């Protein structure tokens, strides 16, 4: 029986009204920027809803995947750095790479040496020794290479390829990291997986932040080229609108693909696995393999969305990926919108991001009032860093939103429509 999607329409109308009000207040340039960023977040949220809503995978390392994908985009799409290619760097890096490949090959060969009858304890010891030597050798070559590159050229630069190739490559990097992580963590219970993904995100960030030769580290890389003409050519409103439409098309394509996949036998199997893992396993489904697929696809989408988000900002700054503000903002989008419901997720992303953006001036305004009232009534002297403190209010509110949604509406605003399948 088909009923009118009243709930969806009401929520959508509310969102449109909210956005319109903001547009009229802050002007189109800022408004379009907000929408473009919200759209990028929506892509990331779709990736997360696949992992959490469809497969029940607990990924709290979102910023690691986003940062890696953004780095991938920089590596492919940033203009070529001639100083690097003409210097000694490429040769040294080449040798480092050769060392790495040889070392890994030897280590793997030793770890497989049971086939020629090497006993297990000895094999284990030899493998560890080989791995340690490989590590030391690679580190020993990489360090001088890194300092030569930093001295000669600053950092390796990019390849100057079109930015959409960069996005795809970034997404692929994130997917690859997801594959590695998934192989390790998917068999674990959810809390362990959360801890593990949190850890990997910290490590990726530590690497990107400290590998100056590769990423310029805290010096940041900018500007990352856009897939559409930049504000310098078209002006803010037109170029940002063009960017917004690129991301919007991406969302539509993703949405259609996901809806179709979800209705297919493959999607049915995924739901079966999520709802009753034991039964699905008993029916001969390879549960962990299916979940690995979900994890990789989800991370690919997260990566592409993240790359688009960072490209829009035009600056790659490894120290700007904050787990607290960003990762859990995306989580709120997914849980509030309705995990496992694509439309709900997109809606949640837009709503939460709009509210998030507006919460900054709102919090500042609120605290200014408190300061004034407090001063008038009690002679209260506000601390000097009140503005930075006021912004922390937003972190508190994200947390509160998570707690309240989970408590009051665990399915979100647009809960997943559970189909009954006999």
């Amino acid at each position, binding site marked *: 029986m088909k009923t009118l999607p009243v709930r969806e329409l009401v929520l959508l109308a509310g969102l449109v009204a909210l956005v319109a009000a903001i547009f009229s207040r802050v002007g189109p340039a800022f408004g379009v920027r907000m929408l473009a960023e919200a759209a990028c977040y929506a892509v990331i949220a779709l990736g997360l809803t696949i992992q959490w809503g469809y497969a029940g995978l607990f990924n709290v390392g979102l910023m690691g995947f986003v940062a890696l994908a953004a780095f991938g985009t920089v590596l492919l799409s940033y203009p070529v750095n001639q100083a690097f290619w003409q210097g000694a760097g490429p040769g040294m890096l080449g040798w480092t790479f050769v060392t790495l490949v040889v070392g890994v090959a030897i280590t793997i060969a030793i770890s497989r040496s049971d086939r020629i009858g090497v006993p297990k304890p000895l094999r284990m010891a030899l493998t560890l020794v080989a791995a340690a030597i490989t590590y030391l050798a690679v580190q020993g070559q990489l360090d001088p290479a890194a300092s030569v590159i930093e001295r000669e050229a600053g950092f390796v630069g990019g390849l100057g390829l079109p930015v959409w190739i960069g996005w795809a490559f970034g997404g692929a990097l994130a997917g690859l990291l997801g594959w590695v992580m998934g192989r390790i963590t998917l068999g674990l219970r959810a809390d362990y997986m959360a801890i593990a993904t949190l850890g990997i995100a910290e490590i990726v960030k*530590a690497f990107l932040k400290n590998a100056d030769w590769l990423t310029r580290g805290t010096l940041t890389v900018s500007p990352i080229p856009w897939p559409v003409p930049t504000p310098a050519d078209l002006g803010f409103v037109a170029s940002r609108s063009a960017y917004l439409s690129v991301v919007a098309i991406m969302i539509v394509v993703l949405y259609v693909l996901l809806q179709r996949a979800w209705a297919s036998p493959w999607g049915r199997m995924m739901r079966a696995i999520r709802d009753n893992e034991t039964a699905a396993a008993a029916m001969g489904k390879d549960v962990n393999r299916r979940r690995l697929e979900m994890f990789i696809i989800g991370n690919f989408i997260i990566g592409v969305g993240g790359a688009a988000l960072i490209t829009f900002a035009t600056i790659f700054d490894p120290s700007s990926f904050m787990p607290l503000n960003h990762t859990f903002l995306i989580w709120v989008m997914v849980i509030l919108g309705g995990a496992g419901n694509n439309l709900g997720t997109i809606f949640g992303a837009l709503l939460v991001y709009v509210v998030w953006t507006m919460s900054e001036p709102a919090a500042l305004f609120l605290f200014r009032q408190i300061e004034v009232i407090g001063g008038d009534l009690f002679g209260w002297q506000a601390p000097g860093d009140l503005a930075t403190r006021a912004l922390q209010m937003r972190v508190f509110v994200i947390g509160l939103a998570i707690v309240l949604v989970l408590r009051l509406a665990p399915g979100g605003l647009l809960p997943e429509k559970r189909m009954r399948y006999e």
Partner: protein
Amino acid sequence: MPEAGLLTVLPMNELVFFINKGIIAGLISGSIYALGAVGVTLIFGILRFAHFPHGDMMTTGAFFALVLLVLFPGAGAAVGLPTAFVLLPIAMAMTAVFAVGIDRVIYRPMRLAGSRPVVMVMTSIGVMLMMQGGIRLFAGTGTRQLYVAADSKDIYRIPLGGRDIVITEPQLLLFVLTIAAVIALHLFLTRSRMGKAMRAVADNPDLARVSGISIDHVVRTTWLIAGALAAAGGTMLALDVTLKPDLSFNIILPIFAAAIVGGVGQPYGAIAGGLLVGFTETLAVFNWSVLLRPLQPLLPEFIEIPGRITFVPTEYKIVVPFFILLAVLIWRPTGIFRGRLNL
């Protein structure tokens, strides 16, 4: 070789450096991780979810100590110990009550509604954000000292001929406190009625209920202990270095690693795990070249010992607990101490 001769041959300065920068530093971070990990492991054993805001619970405890410090700046001078340490029992009590309060307001209703463990974990992440935001809101993002002017940051030196073994007063107090906490916890869990009931609930909650054990009381006691130990760890950490809100997020990964290494639900395992993670982390970034340098005269000319030999560059310290964590999760998900310690 006679004793005296051995001593002159041994590179004493280098050894002392190793003790100062390796052993003592490892013991300190290990003790702090242990104090946190015991709470995480108890909560996991009783309530069955990973308590993400535990690092913030530690910071909260330290901030309670800071508030007390502002209120009673003279308390330390009266006893001759750092003021924050003298006021620590009050801060521990406050944090314990705070932890119970959070359970009452947030976790308990979810428990009664029958939420799944994953939802509890997500809720705990929400609580983590609320606490992080709250702490920064009230205390700002800056760095603070947990000392009042009257406090002396005593430094003890144990002379050994050349370089001295150096240990500061807060470090010494931390060791004493950790050992006292371990003993108290042991006596509580094995001797007291409530301690045994906690272990019983961790073992078999259904049977505990059938025996007439009030799960509510056990849960409350768990939060009291976890909160008090978190406050102790957080305050001592802030005394040893400084107090800043970012403390908590950096510390949660090693604490989880310690709890999992020790086998979740096993307090003694958590203590051992904390020390293990602390030592590994410290020794991984320790500059071994200092210890190898005395060997230089013995080596042929063409081998030169580099100025810096570490297993892991200092910037990547966070990688260490993570790899310990992964290694344990892959090879021994039950923790390395299961079966040996009976708890």
